[in-house]
């Protein structure tokens, strides 16, 4: 069973989370439900720092033994930091998707985009009705 989704952040339908860090920046990653669907992560392709992303455009790629999955930017903005440790330890996404397995930090262009994402409760409801 997936770990519960923390209340301190917002969620997308594509199973990304975004947590406000203050100063219009967010930290993002994938949910624990997502890592269960992805299975054993063996490779992560991170975006370049400085890259501009649009909301719900691909920002990273996560690969398991069997599959290649796009990860989408929960908000529009500029990538200001990436979790380099995932390059050597991609399995961190499976072990701690909501914590050490974070993917990138984004400086938001439009902070209101964050408000438009789902709450933890809304996301839990979403995965109950859309298990994949």
């Amino acid at each position: 069973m997936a770990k519960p989704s923390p209340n301190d952040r917002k969620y997308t339908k594509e199973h990304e989370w975004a947590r406000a860090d203050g100063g219009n920046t967010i930290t993002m990653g994938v949910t624990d439900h997502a890592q269960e669907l992805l299975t054993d992560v063996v490779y992560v392709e991170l975006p370049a720092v400085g890259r501009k992303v649009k909301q719900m455009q691909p920002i990273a790629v996560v690969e398991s033994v069997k599959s290649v999955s796009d990860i989408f930017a929960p908000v529009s903005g500029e990538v200001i930091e990436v979790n380099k440790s995932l390059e050597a330890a991609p399995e961190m996404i499976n072990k701690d998707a909501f914590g050490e397995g974070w993917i990138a930090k984004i400086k938001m262009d439009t902070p209101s985009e964050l408000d438009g994402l789902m709450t933890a409760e809304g996301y839990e409801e979403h995965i109950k009705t859309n298990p994949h």
Partner: protein
Amino acid sequence: MKKTPLYERHLALGATMTEFGGWAMPVQYSGVIDEHRNTRTLAGLFDVCHMGEIEIKGPQALDLLQRVMSRNLAKQQIGEMKLSAITNEKGGIIDDVTVYMRGKEHYMVVTNAATREGDLDWILKAKKDKGFEKAYVADHSEVTGKIDIQGPVAEKILSEIVEGDLGALRFYHAMDTRVAGMPALVSRSGYTGEDGFEVYTEAARIGEIWDLLLHVGDPHGLKPAGLGSRDTLRLEAGMMLFGHEMCQTVTPYEVIYGWITDLDKEFIGRDALKRQKEDGIRKKLVGFELTERGIARHGYPVYAGGEKIGEVTSGTFSPTLGKAIGLAFVPVQYKEPGTVLEVEIRSQRAKAKVVPLPFYKRKK
């Protein structure tokens, strides 16, 4: 989608299911890497009921097989199993199969799932064209169940429920015996690069053998394994998959099936293959490993010196070797181990080098 007799058991075991060759099959139960490692170190149990079994009997059974198989089966003995290709007139591979000689004038051809009907049509057409009326062909796929038990402790586990001396069964040999009291065919063979067995019995009874094997195998570490690990295991062992490495426009010489192609006998495709052997092949299947970050996948383009020269047919992250490996077609001048290639992964090129096959070989 078709369901194997073990379908409900997969759901009960919590498997993730997928479509493969028209069948609903388990991809994984506990996880691809876990099942992969467990099969390499202990044992894995695979549902392969989706594969086809075509029985050929009668005084002209061998004549018909010789006509459709690239392999010379003239000296095959009862109890022996042979890998062979079925080729078209141009030498292209229709399927790669195993042929069991089960008795005098009695053979069983084991086909891939998606190619079974085409193989059957092809064999029946060859029978008609050559007038081999005394070769009796019957598709037993629907009534035959098949499971593979693979890994270093497979023999120990299967021995507990099989009649006869499993230890005396040699590689690529089979015996008609009883498993859990039911008539069954057991061969020492498989698709993982480990020691192991393929077990055939009545489809209606295969579930009982599956359950019993998981029960007696549990203390030895036997776990069910899905198609996900079946694919990574076979790729590490340098084994090919029809539809990836092989199709009807690829010949045995272009892949690694020259050794099962016997030009000294008549068979469909022989003349084309003989010409190809004399003229030399232009492309060849090679193994490679990535020397830069990334994972190569089926269909990714292969480059050398800035030019596109080929395509990846299978690629994955190898759990045993801890690196990205794959198979690809390249022009023959790039086939030597050590040759540097590039694989295009999402419009970026990653360096790779040609390596000898197999990627993984078990310690005897």
